[in-house]
């Protein structure tokens, strides 16, 4: 006789026995909740942005915050950085900023009679690149290389960056004066791009009230350490991705490449980053597996800034986000059981 219990009963639902599958643990949940709550105390009314920023951090990506000045981009980056007990540097990008101002320089030490490397602001766990599109392309490239390689090479010597390492860059819309738009290849280095948008009226009024007397950042205390974040990243990496979800992801990517109004679709790297972001999103939901919903939820943030619209679409006023939404409405959700 088969001793295994019936999979489904005819009776009313009964609690299932506790199981021992691995997945995000309670600490993961507690820490992520505390980080998000802390961020929300400063960035009121923008839970999606705060959550996405944390998602990108846990997915070991970099975040591009794009919006008009004064909507809280830098504040979000700073707040996220302060909730974690880690090194944080901020770089204010200006047209005269040099690459060495970012990466660091080798200086000849008279005492030791040797060149010594003076690390630049990029040597931190979280680097806030403010108004990155105001710097020259050369300086931008220096930062972006660090983002990709997680290391800095100066005078033939390679210096490894810290772990975790995350760049949170802000930029103003390219229509603004005095900006150098990021090239497509370099935008591709950012896992996700979000637009903050204006807060709603209530949140804005609250902000006026709370920020009047004190700097809300001063009240932010670190709720997690670097080891905590590294452990959370490990847990995110272990989140399961089923074959059907992979097929769904691939189908979305191919749909963007074949889309008639796009000049450039999603790259394989972008799909990889989409999957990683979805894993982090699933972990934040308390799941150890990715759903198609995670892929769909992350698609706009991860894919839209990489897509290039053709002239017709641009002149018609189409946006990449609208096209991503359209693609999601057309791509069937793959199911394992259907192929069986």
């Amino acid at each position, binding site marked *: 006789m088969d001793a295994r219990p019936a999979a489904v009963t005819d009776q009313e*639902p009964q609690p299932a*026995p506790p199981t021992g599958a691995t997945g995000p643990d309670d600490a993961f949940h507690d820490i992520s909740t505390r980080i998000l709550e802390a961020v*929300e105390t400063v960035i009121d009314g923008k*839970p999606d942005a705060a959550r996405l920023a944390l998602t990108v951090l846990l997915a070991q990506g970099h975040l591009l915050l794009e919006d008009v000045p004064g909507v809280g981009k830098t504040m979000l980056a700073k707040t996220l950085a302060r909730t974690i007990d880690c090194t944080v540097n901020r770089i204010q990008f200006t047209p005269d900023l040099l690459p060495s101002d970012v990466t660091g320089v080798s200086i000849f030490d008279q005492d030791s009679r040797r060149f010594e490397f003076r690390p630049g602001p990029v040597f931190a766990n979280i680097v806030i690149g403010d108004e990155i599109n105001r710097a020259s392309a050369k300086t931008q490239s220096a930062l972006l290389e660090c983002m990709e390689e997680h290391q800095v090479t100066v005078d033939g010597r390679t210096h490894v960056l810290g772990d975790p390492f995350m760049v949170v860059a802000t930029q103003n819309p390219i229509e603004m004066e005095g900006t150098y738009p990021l*090239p*497509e290849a370099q935008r591709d280095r950012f896992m996700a791009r979000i637009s903050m948008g204006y807060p709603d009226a209530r949140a804005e009024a609250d902000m006026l009230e709370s920020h009047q007397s004190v700097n809300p950042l001063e009240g932010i205390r670190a709720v997690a350490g670097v080891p905590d974040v590294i452990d959370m990243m490990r847990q995110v990496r272990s989140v399961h991705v089923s074959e059907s979800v992979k097929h769904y992801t691939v189908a979305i990517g191919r749909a963007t490449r074949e889309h008639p109004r796009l000049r450039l679709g999603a*790259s394989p790297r972008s799909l990889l980053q989409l999957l990683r972001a979805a894993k982090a999103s699933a972990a934040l939901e308390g799941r150890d597996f*990715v759903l198609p919903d995670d892929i769909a939820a992350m698609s706009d943030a991860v894919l839209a800034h990489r897509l290039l619209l053709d002239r017709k679409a641009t002149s018609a006023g189409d946006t990449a986000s609208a096209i991503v939404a359209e693609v999601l409405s057309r791509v069937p959700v793959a199911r394992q059981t259907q192929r*069986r």
Partner: protein
Amino acid sequence: MTSTLSRPASAPSAPPDSGAETRALRQADPWHWLVTGAVLLTVVAAASSLNGVVEPWTWFRPVTGTLVPVLLVMALVRTVRPGRVLPTLVGLVALVGTLSAQFLPRQSILGVVPGPGSRLEVRRLLAMAGETVVSEVAPVLADPGILLVICASLGAVAILVDLLSTSLRMPAASGLALIVVMIPAAIVKPAGVGMSAFVVTVLAFLLLLAAAQWRENRLAGAGGRPSSGFVGRSLIITAAALAVTVALPQLIPGFTSGAFPQGSRLNVWGTASGLNPVVTLGNDLRNPSGSGRITYSTNSDSPVYLRAVTLEDFSGRRWEPDQRINDREEGVARIGAERGAPETTTGQTIYTHIRTQSYASPWLLSPYAPESVIDLAGNWAWDPANLSIMATDGGSTAGQDYLVRSRSASLTKEGLADVRPSAGAAVPEVFSGLPADTPEIVLTTTDDVAGDLVDPYDKALAIQSYLRGPEFTYSLEAPVEGGYDGSGMGVMAEFLELKAGYCVHYAGTMAVMARAAGIPSRVAIGYTPGTATGDVEIGPGGLELEQFTVDSRNAHAWPELYFEGVGWVRFEPTPSRGVVPAYAQQAFVPGGTSADDSDALNPRGVTDAVEPTTPQTSEATDQDGPGGTGEPAVAPVLVAGLLVAALALVVLLPLGLRTLRTGSRRRSATATGTPVQEAATLAWAETSDAAADHGYAPEPTETPRSFERRLARDAGLDGGAADSLSRLRSGYEHAEYAEQADPSGPALHPVDGPKPGSVRTVARQRPVAQSWGDVDAVTAALRRGSPLSVRIRARLLPRSLWTRSGRTLR
């Protein structure tokens, strides 16, 4: 530079696209050929039940000639492009092509494309099939019309079975289509489908199931056990097949004894109907309820035989009335003289008022020889060759109330005895000729009986006396082998050997023997005088017309012999049936048992028209039951019941299939040992199907969560139903997307779907169980929230049967 970037070509390392997937699937599934082969075998096996409905195996060549190309083409298309729609459409086209090639070769373009004239030819063939169905008893001859119907039907069944078994991968459900093939046999054949055909069909069906399961295992990549749903469906289908083969024949009176040679009581076209009444005559006689009641009132002094038609062409395997459409004369208000009739006749003018009620036939009943028929609805024409009256506009005798004026010739023994042998030129050859294949026994027997006699009257009396002699036994059941219930020269020869039969055999044999003795003859089909009701009505000229009633048990056949100068003369060779006319009675009958038949059959003391009471009539009288004369006919009720049952079967078929699927899923999901993932998938599939049935079909682009949200919102699910839906969705997500290493269940199981990005709604996992109760709860809530029309449609026409969601599981 970025400005030069263009869309990259598909990289070799790109994930597999849908085309590649299709190709992979195609390469991975060559086993559909095996299933299609099994489909061919199964349909042919089921078609073997048609042996006995039509002449054995005459269907085999055209049917295989239809099925093989159709299924071959479907399998080929499926190899190139797997799917449901295209192979089915191509199969239908191939079916039309094969039917055209076989049945419309002259009207087809290139032999396979129906061309000009095809429509007319198809109509002609269908009309031929209709005539066969109406006028013949099983096994019918396999004429082109019948074969066209059989091939088209079986071709459609084969396409359906192949679609179900191969494309939809529901081979067990295809058994229902096979049952349809067996229904004609179950209804028409006395013994139902028959054990051999049933066993062969079941074995072939099991082979089909095995082939389909083998394919499933191959596709799944592992040799698994058949799912319980698979087995369950198969058992249900087998039970239904048993019901068809065993129960259905029981529903039709007459099958229960199994003693009848062949032919069913069931005649869906009405009582004693058809162009060929002779072939249903045996059935009418055996009908215990005496259906098709007819009343007539007459002023005749002698028993009135109501005659419908005559048989005179004795060639061919079955005798059929010759319609002689072109020779008929329209209008029956004034009927002329019959060919060969004497110029002057003496006798009584008889008025007969006939009410046919439910009796339906294209041949009009009238006493011989009719001179005028009035008050008749429809167009009728009379045949100068035999005075038969036939509807020419497709009408029938049903519900007619008409008056016939006829002349009954005054015949005497003396007058007939004076007739001398003649060359017989007064009547057409068809009344006097014998086919070349006339059996020897007929000729030798005639020679023995009448060889020494010279005058036709003496010969006729001798033959009649011989057949009425003690050697012959009246029996409705004696001939038990197939074919004997009909007519034809072979049957008459067999009758002379067996010396047992009923009126068709007696009359036919006497007619044949008369021709062998040189007397022109024909076989008349109609009714014996019947029973007097005691009522009298006033007819034309104040005549008193005495009323009689007849029903199917009075159906009769008798020979009419031609005497030159006298005309056609009725004889009565059948013992215990009918009335021997005074001029045909013989004092020196060998064995002399029937000389007083007229007394026994005398309805009024002076005429002979009552039911026979001799021991030899036991078969007829024993069958008189409560449904005898005066009772409403059973056959129409039975036919209506069967039609209603068939209609109900068709209407309820989707409901049945849907219920089968639900039951199968439920059993599988609640079975001990079923993995949690499979159970959750089954529960979700059932939920999705229930939603689809109620108008909320899941879209292919919807994730389980988005579908759940939409369903809960649109269907107004809340409270327990919404929780149940959430649990079902959650269980399915784990089955579909979570790692499958731990079959005992998910570790993390959020109850509520999160709103993406919402920090405060991030839910911690809490364990929940799968329960079929959740499926029931959601289904019940959907029903509650739907208007009546939707609920009815969901039950009777469940959309999930043909939507993609139904394919989430086998």
